[in-house]
């Protein structure tokens, strides 16, 4: 039996910063010190604080090590695991306060509430026994032996759980619409949307990688509730680790009889199959996703008929997002009232956000609905780094909008985000500071939508392209005030007329930045100026002759040979030749070069 457990993060973030090597070294050192029988090393899913990876946590002390390098393994084992002296230099501290922190004491974790991520970073996702040890498959046992399908649906409905994919449709209602179609369970389907495509969003991946059984169990519960015998998980092939762990999880669940025929000796049978998507953004849209599972080109189709009546293979189907499912088992075990007690009037429970961009603690956070953006950015996220000022937060990816400083104290829930021109979306949250140009951000998302438009309907295929052209014109300094108006008009037109969610929401980033940062657009057009200094056509690099010492460093760095001058004399940039790469500014030791 083990007296101590060392958790090593095996999420995609930490893996790419070398956590596997750290884990191997730890295991080897533990063996060397004869501790293999006493200390267990477990590879877990994501802990959330991806910016500080590789992360290693030692229990029972709950010591949180950050940025652990493979060569640190020997010290951790010899000092901490053998002698009980935590390696202080590796312990995560929050900068402003220098004292040592345990996990739940840090600002990053203190305000979080982990329901969907409760097992992420705690269990070994490749061992079904550990999931069971944390209460796994209890909820499935409970529904199959103690509850009727209608009771399950009513519980989910009462809990107030809404779709975490972004639109926020009540999950219980979706299940009920499908359940009323009384057909053979063989011809009814439970689907999971794991086609996470928003730039910057990775919460679904983390659940799949860190707690795959939570998804499988919830899908089986959904199968029982709506009367279906088959489930499909549509996951992108670009998530190899998630796919691998799902495959392992399905095989283990089948081996234990937790998926398959007559689960727990009841009449209920349910199996789950994986379908890999090739990464088209539109396949995250529900009708396109089902078309893709059918083996056809992933294109959306008009609704109605809704999937609850005619979905996959024209049969009644439910489709929920990974994070939605990740809440289901806890609702069954702890009850609808417990879940309902968390969150706001209209949005219950928690939401996972993938924090990225100009923020100190890049990573995954799960907070109760109703938490303000300020709490997420300033407390949990650790604020904007390098002393810069917060400008806006982009939520909802290419379908969402920007939340400016003036709305930072709005409690985040589905309705409030819509009211301020953004949306929940899948939970990507990109923080921007004063160095971000809002026109450029809008352009980035518009480029994404142009690339990802499937081309089936005209408003999206042609409309987004035209919008991008106008944006390019503006950032090139050739825009007019009329263009801004046209942009708005076109955006609203696409919103009303596109066939599916992709097109209907594609103009959002533009419309919301136009709403809150119109002055920036106008500055681009009338003054030909990019305040943030991002749009290359509108800025020039200039050398301040008073500060320039004539060290020639910039001239040597310039790839375009645009800088001239003699030694110890102020240099000059030839604006005709300058390609605005910024290499000179980075090279200058005297801060003599500035953007204008």
């Amino acid at each position, binding site marked *: 039996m083990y007296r101590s457990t060392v958790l090593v993060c095996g999420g995609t973030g930490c893996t790419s910063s070398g956590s596997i090597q750290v884990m191997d070294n730890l295991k080897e050192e533990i063996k060397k010190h004869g501790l293999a029988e006493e200390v*267990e090393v477990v590879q877990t899913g994501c802990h959330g604080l991806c910016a500080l990876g590789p992360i290693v946590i030692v229990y029972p002390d709950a010591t949180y090590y950050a940025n652990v390098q493979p060569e640190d393994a020997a010290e951790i084992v010899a000092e901490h695991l053998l002698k009980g002296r935590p390696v202080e230099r590796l312990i995560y501290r929050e900068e402003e306060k220098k004292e040592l922190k345990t996990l739940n004491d840090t600002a990053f974790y203190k305000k979080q509430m982990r329901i969907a991520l409760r097992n992420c970073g705690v269990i070994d996702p490749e061992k079904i026994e550990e999931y069971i040890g944390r209460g796994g498959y209890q909820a499935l046992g409970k529904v199959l032996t103690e509850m009727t399908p209608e009771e399950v649906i009513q519980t989910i409905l009462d809990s107030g759980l809404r779709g975490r994919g972004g639109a926020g449709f009540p999950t219980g209602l979706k299940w009920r619409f499908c359940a009323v179609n009384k057909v053979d369970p063989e011809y009814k389907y439970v689907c999971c949307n794991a086609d996470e495509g928003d730039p910057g969003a990775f919460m679904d991946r983390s659940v799949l990688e860190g707690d795959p059984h939570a998804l499988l169990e919830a899908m089986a519960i959904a199968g029982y509730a709506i009367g279906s015998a088959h489930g499909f998980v549509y996951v992108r092939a670009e998530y190899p680790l998630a796919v691998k762990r799902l495959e392992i999880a399905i095989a283990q669940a089948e081996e234990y009889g937790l998926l398959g025929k007559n689960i727990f000796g009841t009449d209920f049978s349910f199996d789950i199959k994986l379908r890999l998507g090739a990464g088209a953004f539109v396949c995250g849209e529900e009708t396109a996703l089902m078309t893709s599972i059918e083996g056809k080109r992933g294109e959306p189709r008009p609704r109605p008929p809704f999937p609850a009546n005619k979905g996959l293979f024209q049969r009644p189907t439910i489709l929920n997002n990974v994070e939605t499912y990740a809440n289901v088992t806890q609702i069954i075990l702890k009850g609808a009232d417990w879940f309902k007690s968390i969150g706001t009037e209209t949005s219950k429970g928690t939401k996972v956000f993938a924090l990225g961009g100009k923020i100190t603690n890049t990573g995954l956070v799960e907070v109760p609905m109703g938490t303000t953006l300020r709490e997420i950015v300033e407390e949990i996220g650790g604020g904007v780094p390098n002393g810069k000022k917060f400008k806006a937060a982009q939520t909802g990816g290419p379908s969402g909008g920007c939340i400016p400083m003036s709305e930072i104290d709005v409690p985040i829930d589905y309705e409030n985000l819509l009211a301020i021109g953004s949306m929940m979306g899948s939970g990507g949250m990109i923080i921007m500071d004063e160095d971000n140009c809002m026109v450029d951000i809008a352009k980035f998302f518009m480029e994404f939508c142009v690339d990802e438009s499937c081309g089936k309907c005209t408003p999206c295929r042609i409309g987004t392209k035209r919008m991008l052209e106008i944006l390019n014109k503006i950032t090139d300094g050739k825009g007019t005030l009329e263009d801004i108006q046209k942009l708005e008009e076109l955006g609203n037109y696409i919103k009303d007329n596109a066939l599916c969610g992709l097109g209907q929401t594609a103009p959002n980033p533009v419309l919301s930045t136009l709403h809150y940062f119109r002055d920036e657009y106008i500055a681009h057009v009338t003054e030909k100026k990019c305040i943030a200094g991002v749009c290359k056509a509108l800025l020039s690099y200039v050398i301040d002759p008073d500060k320039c010492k004539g060290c020639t460093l910039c001239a040597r760095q310039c790839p375009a040979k645009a800088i001239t001058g003699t030694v110890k004399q102020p240099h000059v940039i030839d604006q005709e030749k300058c390609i605005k790469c910024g290499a000179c500014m980075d090279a200058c030791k005297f801060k003599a070069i500035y953007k204008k």
Partner: protein
Amino acid sequence: MMTLDELKKIREKMQNEVNIRQEAGDRIRVLVGMATCGIASGARPVLRTLADGVQNKNLTDKIVVSQTGCIGLCQYEPIVEVIKPGEPKVTYVHMNPEKAEEVLTRHLIGGHVVRDYTLESSNLK
């Protein structure tokens, strides 16, 4: 095919392993001094006895056994400290696996401090 009983059995067995992975909270904390002095005088078997005992008796949701460094009383090692929330700390000295077993049964489970082994009883000068 798995029955609910079998699921329960796996859960109980695994619970002890995964229960280690949380902060002590309001559980009883048992700290074993595992610095060089502690190890030299035999702290490791003591730690193992306590850690295994707690897991074998399915007490991981009530008691957490952890190691600590040198507390400065090297001549009294192996030292075991028991910290119950809201109660004064009890320090056991000159421990061995047999004494540890006794502390587990009488103090941690039974709730009675084993006075014979405490620091107070050892005439600390």
